[in-house]
């Protein structure tokens, strides 16, 4: 007497690949590249249009935030809201470090529009994290290309 046992199918097997990486590009590499440079994760996967749109959106949002004289948060201020703002800003990757090195966003926020700028900068960082995780999901086969 024989018993049929059905084994669970992994995501990579469903996609027709037995590799850990469905695309041939390391998922971790796409995650890190996408974090450092907006859209770079999708560019590594050959998704050029998506990469260009993501880069234009995230860099555009960050640049508008700086142009509106928004605040770029710094670590170790001791204020919980500043820490959250710093975590959001850090999501922009290299853009954040460039802004810090060049001294952008260090002026005090005095008008409502500058406060909008602060939010633009934080949200640009958060959107970049979403984009980098999406690139990771595409590379690992978790999301269909």
């Amino acid at each position: 007497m024989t018993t049929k046992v059905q084994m669970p199918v992994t995501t990579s097997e469903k996609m027709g690949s037995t590799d850990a990486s469905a695309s041939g590009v390391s998922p971790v590499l796409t995650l890190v590249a996408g974090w450092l440079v907006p859209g770079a994760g999708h560019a590594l996967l050959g998704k050029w249009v998506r990469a260009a749109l993501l880069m234009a959106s995230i860099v555009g949002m960050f640049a508008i935030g700086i142009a509106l004289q928004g605040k770029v948060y710094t670590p170790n201020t001791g204020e919980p809201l500043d820490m959250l703002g710093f975590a959001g800003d850090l999501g922009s990757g290299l853009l954040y470090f460039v802004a810090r090195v060049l001294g952008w966003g260090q002026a005090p926020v005095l008008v409502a529009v500058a406060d909008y700028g602060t939010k633009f900068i934080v949200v640009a960082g958060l959107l970049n994290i979403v984009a980098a995780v999406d690139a990771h999901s595409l590379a690992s086969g978790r999301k269909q290309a």
Partner: protein
Amino acid sequence: MNLSHFSAVLLFSLFTSIVFGITQRAEPKKMMRFGAFCFVLFVAGTVAASWVMWLIKP
């Protein structure tokens, strides 16, 4: 640079909707539809919230 409140809303909604559309859907057609849906929700939600604030002001 100086933006009106409404133009800031439009820019915020545009950029955010593009990223949401690309990352939350798998096919290009669905990406565009979801991005447009998010954009309309962002703008309409802001306008609606503005009217609510105007109505409840003391």
